[in-house]
């Protein structure tokens, strides 16, 4: 026992022992299950039936990758991600510029804008579902007041996509704003003074002084939001449940239905691994730029 304690307390193992509990928990609750499902993706297996799994090789990967439905879901996801992230970047930047001044009650007013990103996806889904309600929702009523027609926003493909994009962008625009603002306040004063001496126009000053300080953070915001929006599930689940038809079914909703409504366990595991690969690539890219930024500053 004494020897064992000494072995653990050995300064050589200090780092390893400190992180061991974390690694063990992650292994049991995350990495092991992932490896298990990696295994399952090579077998015929249905979680709802009692049949023992039988070997399938790469069958499910071939099936998933050659399935036009999967590609359709990827396209839907890509469409929602790019629209939503674009809106977030534009409005986030604008709001950051707005708040890059010092004025009375700035802290309090900024809280109004920052709060949405701390809310639950489910709550945000409910807000916007109430807004889009055709007869008594605010959007529906405003539309009827202006055009005299009833707007059933979620009944068409583009309407439903717009509905989801607005909700998601509303929630995450503050995130972009926060990052851009951090860039804006990090510009050293002497650069602005130098620009003034050079009689630079406002646009030139923005392009040569301000933007370089924001660029790195903007890129981080773009990547981070892309990874996060790629997982979009809750908002879609609440607002449209993937409808009308399957026109707003994102890849996450698709995997959910495949795994828990149709119990195609092997197939959903194979698709999950493809998602995992995408996320690993994006996360790597994100950390690369994080490190690059840290070295610059």
């Amino acid at each position: 026992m004494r020897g064992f304690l000494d072995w653990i307390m050995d300064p050589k193992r200090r780092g390893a022992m400190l992180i061991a509990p974390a690694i063990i928990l992650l292994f049991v609750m995350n990495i092991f299950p992932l490896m298990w499902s990696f295994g399952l993706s090579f077998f015929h297996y249905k979680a709802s039936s009692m049949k023992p799994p039988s070997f399938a090789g790469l069958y499910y990967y071939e099936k998933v990758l050659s399935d036009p439905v999967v590609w359709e879901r990827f396209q839907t996801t890509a469409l929602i991600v790019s629209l939503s992230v674009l809106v977030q970047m534009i409005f986030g930047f604008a709001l950051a510029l707005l708040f890059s001044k010092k004025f009375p009650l700035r802290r309090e007013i900024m809280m109004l804008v920052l709060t949405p990103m701390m809310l639950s996806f489910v709550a945000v889904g409910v807000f916007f579902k109430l807004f889009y309600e055709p007869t008594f929702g605010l959007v529906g009523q405003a539309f009827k007041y202006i055009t005299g027609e009833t707007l059933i926003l979620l009944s068409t493909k583009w309407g439903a996509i717009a509905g989801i994009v607005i909700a998601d962008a509303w929630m995450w625009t503050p995130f972009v704003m926060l990052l851009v603002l951090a860039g804006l306040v990090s510009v050293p004063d002497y650069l602005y003074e130098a620009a003034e001496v050079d009689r630079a126009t406002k646009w030139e000053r923005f392009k040569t002084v301000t933007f370089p300080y924001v660029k790195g953070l903007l890129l981080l915001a773009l990547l981070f939001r892309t990874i996060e929006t790629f997982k979009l599930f809750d908002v879609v689940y609440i607002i449209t449940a993937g409808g009308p038809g399957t026109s707003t079914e994102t890849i996450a909703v698709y995997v959910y239905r495949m795994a828990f409504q149709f119990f195609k366990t092997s197939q959903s595991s194979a698709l999950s691994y493809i998602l995992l690969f995408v996320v690993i690539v994006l996360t790597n890219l994100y950390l690369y730029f994080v490190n690059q930024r840290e070295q610059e500053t």
Partner: protein
Amino acid sequence: MSIFGKGRKKHALREAGWGYSAICGAIGLVYFSPVLWIILTSFKTRQDALATPPAFFFTPTFDNFVRVFYRLTSEGEQMATGMGLFFFNSIFIAGAGVLLAVIIGTSAAYGFSRFPLKGNDTYLFVILTTRMLPPIVVIVPIFLMFRITGLSGSYIGIILLYAMFNLAFSVWMMKSFFDELSTDVEDAARLEGANEWKVFFKICLPQLKAGIAATSVFALILTWNEFLFALLLTGNDTRTVPVAMARSMGGQLGVDWGLLAAIITLFLIPVFIVTYLLQNHLLRGVTFGTVKK
């Protein structure tokens, strides 16, 4: 972080007056209006909630808030709706999961920051990836595992899962705080003969009180809001509030908006308080500690 103009600042923000405040305030209110509308709706009667044109002025009622916890049976008796239990579950599960994650995460962050291993960056990358993964990718195998081990629907299962869910976040957040801390004091203490326990508990942790608080509170909110894991892995007795909210959307008789709005209003109160308290750590929190300033 200095977005609020505090701390070490390089760039003095230009001053603007009350007029500018008014403009920003108006924009802020418009931005916040979805939240305000839900809060208003929670004080409306059923008629007011469904009124056309929308009722901006009405006599407020607390009826919805009572109905969150009690409903009248056909015999006119008051009966608990179970919502009280779901609120308790949300608090208990998030609290226990986060406590576990922050303890384990702080220890790991200290290790990563002070005693780097070979392949430190790889470990950190793997840990971050587990958090970046779509929850749906993780949930399929965990669902199967919980079914076999009987953890499905139990407190211990969902608490362990949330501990894992928050671990990556805690490690990265706490590491960013440890990295900022100067090691001079620690080294001095070591030279004076303090042992490692003392260095960690008496020197490091007291300096990081604010960081630990921010990490815990942030993780609490992330867990409080979490939906997909809770949807699939909690049972009738362990259900959390977001799942209960989603379920009350799917009713056959149409959605009872006043009631739903009241649930959401209650659900959001802790979020508002926490967001206000966390202001200075928001940037670090939402980026998992990867962007500090």
